[in-house]
């Protein structure tokens, strides 16, 4: 309410576009705007730009360029992977396995498929948000055509044992998709080593533009199209290519994966300083998600006795931007399905705060949050009928 300091700690929701990325994109709006499907010079230059971006995406995840298809975002990639595999393999089976803590782009797609006659198993997670591998194995049937497990969770940051899931899927000859929207740039990924058949990503989570993403589909995997249309993306995704967006995605993924270790070390140090400070300064506080196997920038804590929306609004007044799993913030009856899946009671889930750190955050930012946050929590607790001093 006083400060002009702005501390953005909601990078898991979306990031700003890095200047280098925007710069790479700019020529493609006004000058170099030709339709990549055209035979003339202007079109051919656009085609090269797209193929260059495709190579960058492929390289970042250990795939071949011809295995990368550009989409209009992470949700489209998720929808395509799930529906595409389902519709293409219906003759083989109608059973899909996923987890209880997937993003709604996966969960709501599965719900749609259930209405279309598919059967979906939602595997549980433990109190740290790690998938139950035994339950996963036991839920496989002759009819299982697809396993989709996210690489890292967007709310609590827990990283899944993707290699092991890939092995299980491979052994049983089942297609394995992973939603890696949160993982890119934070975890080393190699789709071949990890036996990943399909992988979704979205540029705006790693300092690229919104409205563009990609789906990796291993050569030989057949999926039905989601966006039917022109011959773009080797006839698998119709629509005039989002040329500046794709160029931006290419540049952003190149930057994000150039030095994952270095990036993580820096972010993790900041994150731990902030997390330890919070746990130290604010009583009745609990960390959600796995203590070690988590995204380097992710903090998710629950403050007892208070509700998250008010917390966000007060933080906002101090220039701090975070997010919450409270139902009050989403307008739905239940708080975050992820927090419930790891066993939090409703009232604790309501008091959750996610702070996700990014490249521009500094130690000063951390110290500022550590100064402001405890007061705000106390202020809300003082208003809470649940809190008895």
């Amino acid at each position, binding site marked *: 309410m006083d400060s002009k300091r702005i501390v953005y700690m909601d990078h898991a929701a979306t990031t700003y576009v890095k200047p280098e990325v925007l710069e790479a994109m700019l020529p493609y709006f006004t000058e170099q705007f030709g339709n990549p499907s055209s035979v003339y010079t202007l079109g051919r230059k656009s085609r090269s730009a797209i193929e260059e971006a495709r190579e960058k995406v492929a390289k970042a995840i250990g795939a071949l360029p011809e295995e990368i298809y550009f989409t209009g975002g992470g949700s489209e990639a998720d929808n395509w992977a799930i529906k595409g595999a389902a519709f293409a393999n219906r003759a083989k089976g109608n059973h899909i396995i996923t987890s209880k803590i997937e993003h709604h782009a996966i969960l709501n797609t599965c719900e749609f498929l259930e209405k279309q006659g598919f059967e979906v198993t939602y595997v549980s997670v433990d109190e740290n948000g790690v998938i139950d591998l035994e339950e996963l194995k036991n839920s496989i049937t002759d009819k299982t055509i697809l396993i989709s497990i996210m690489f890292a969770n967007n709310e609590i940051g827990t990283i899944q044992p993707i290699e092991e899931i890939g092995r299980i899927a491979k052994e049983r000859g089942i297609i394995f998709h992973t939603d890696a929207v949160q993982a890119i740039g934070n975890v080393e990924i190699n789709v071949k080593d990890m036996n990943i058949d399909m992988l979704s990503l979205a540029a705006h989570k790693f300092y690229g533009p919104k409205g563009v993403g990609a789906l990796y589909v291993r050569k030989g995997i057949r999926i039905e199209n989601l966006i039917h249309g022109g011959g773009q993306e080797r006839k698998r995704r119709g629509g005039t290519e989002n040329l500046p967006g794709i160029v931006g995605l290419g540049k952003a993924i190149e930057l994000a994966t150039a030095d994952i270790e270095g990036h993580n070390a820096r972010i993790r140090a900041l994150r731990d300083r902030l997390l330890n400070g919070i746990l130290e300064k604010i009583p009745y506080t609990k960390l959600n998600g796995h203590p070690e196997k988590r995204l380097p920038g992710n903090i998710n804590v629950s403050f007892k006795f208070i509700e998250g*929306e*008010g917390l966000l*609004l007060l933080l906002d007044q101090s220039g701090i931007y975070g997010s919450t799993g409270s139902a009050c913030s989403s*307008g739905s*009856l239940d708080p975050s399905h992820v927090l419930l899946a790891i066993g939090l009671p409703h*009232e604790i889930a309501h008091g959750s705060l996610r702070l996700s750190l990014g490249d521009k955050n500094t130690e000063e930012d951390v110290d500022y949050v550590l100064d402001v946050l405890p007061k705000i929590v106390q202020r809300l607790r003082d*208003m809470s*009928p*649940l809190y008895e001093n």
Partner: protein
Amino acid sequence: MYSDKVMDHFMNPRNVGEIENADGIGEVGNPKCGDIMRIYLDVEDNIIKDVKFKTFGCGAAIASSSMATELIKGKTLEEAWRLTNKAVAEALGGLPAIKMHCSVLAEGAIHKAINDYRIKHGLEPWKDDKNYDDDHHDIGE
């Protein structure tokens, strides 16, 4: 999404706190769905002399508590009983559709506090046709 009035009452809530040995206390909501509002009344000669609240809930819930307590302070119990959630929302310059139920909490807590007072004073509680402890979260549009 919130009006300036809402933000003002959320940021600087009036009448936060408890009243020791209050004449009437009303609580609605349940922690499961995330919202609890508790209202304390000090009543003298059928007039609300003082009122305080404690709320566990969103910004709109806190602002509604603040506004509602302001609106009934100094009023008769009959006047206070007639305060609707709509009047609270209007006084706040409006609430988003998905947040209207938060103002209902205020109406409910006041009703409960008044009836608590009436029962303590051997009066018959007034009849309320809403159940304020129901799941009241609702998706707009």
